[in-house]
């Protein structure tokens, strides 16, 4: 697939390298001469000096034939404008914007960006998971941001302890995808799987089901 990336900073460059390694065709645009030169000296003509918010520069980068358009500059406003131009002018099938301000994540999706990656949210999720005994750990958002994967530790004495999975009523749309025992052994969940205290369940859930899910697995009668 042909991928156009706006911004040749750490994220854009790292992504370009990993995609080149898997045989994708990649092209980067950046406003910084030094960054572009450094990429060209290593990888040849995969980068060009240009502005992701300029239609002419986007046309020259071949956005019209790109299967994926990624705006990964450090400037949220530029990333939005680039993705909107890619969509509106070049009918990009898929646009992705990186945002630094988490407030912009929902807004950009509402404004037509197909997928938004919030750096702050990702870092916060990862950091929260390092805090011991955190009740619900958000492991990752899933496509479209409306669903996510979470981990919940079952406390001793919880109502679900010694119950079979088939007996537990989960919030609508949620499903347990893995059960991890206290020593780290993993078990593929079956209806007859019996939960134990200190087990960790990995669940895919709609975002709005997170609270109910937490109550289901941690409530102590």
């Amino acid at each position: 697939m042909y991928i156009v990336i706006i911004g040749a900073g750490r994220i854009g460059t790292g992504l370009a390298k990993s995609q080149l390694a898997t045989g994708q065709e990649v092209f980067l645009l950046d406003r910084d001469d030094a960054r572009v030169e450094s990429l060209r000296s290593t990888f040849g003509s995969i980068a060009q000096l240009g502005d992701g918010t300029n239609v002419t520069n986007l046309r020259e980068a071949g956005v019209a034939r790109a299967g994926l358009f990624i705006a990964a500059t450090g400037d949220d406003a530029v990333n939005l404008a680039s993705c909107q131009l890619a969509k509106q002018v070049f009918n990009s099938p898929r646009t992705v914007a990186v945002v630094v301000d988490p407030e912009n994540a929902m807004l950009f999706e509402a404004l037509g960006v197909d997928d938004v990656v919030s750096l702050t949210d990702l870092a916060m999720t990862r950091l929260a998971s390092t805090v011991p005994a955190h009740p619900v750990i958000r492991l990752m958002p899933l496509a479209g941001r409306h669903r996510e994967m979470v981990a919940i530790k079952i406390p001793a004495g919880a109502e679900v302890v010694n119950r079979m999975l088939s007996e537990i009523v989960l919030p609508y749309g949620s499903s347990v995808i893995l059960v991890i025992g206290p020593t780290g052994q993993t078990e593929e969940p079956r209806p007859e799987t019996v939960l134990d205290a200190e087990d960790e369940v990995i669940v895919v859930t709609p975002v709005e089901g997170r609270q109910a899910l937490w109550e289901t697995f941690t409530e102590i009668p």
Partner: protein
Amino acid sequence: MKVVIMGSGRIGARVASSLSADGHGVSVIESNRTQVMNLSRTLVDDGLITLVIGDGSGSEAMLEAGIEDADVFLALSGNDALNGLAAQKAKSVYQTRRVVCRVKDEGLRELYTSLGITVTSPTALVADVILQTVPDMPG
């Protein structure tokens, strides 16, 4: 009428003063302290122009400037993409009735116009005025 202006460069500051002189309530959001110098000191000190120092497209500054009950939002900074983001936010998040966005780039002008935002391009306006001063050339 209540007007929130983003950007107190020469254009933003001048629009702010004129609107204030006409009796409108004006708030100005500016992130750069040196740009604030463009605003009339007396109007700010007398409380006729409310100055908010902050990120022009951030909710915090927009709310402090009173975007929720503003009739008009003018994105007049020198940064096209930032103006576009702030204007779309005013329109879609705060449902501001009238939103105007200053844009230099022609492609962005078309984009924002297609999104229902009133776009003004000082560059194009100046060019038009200059062209009007050129006498008609014989065909």
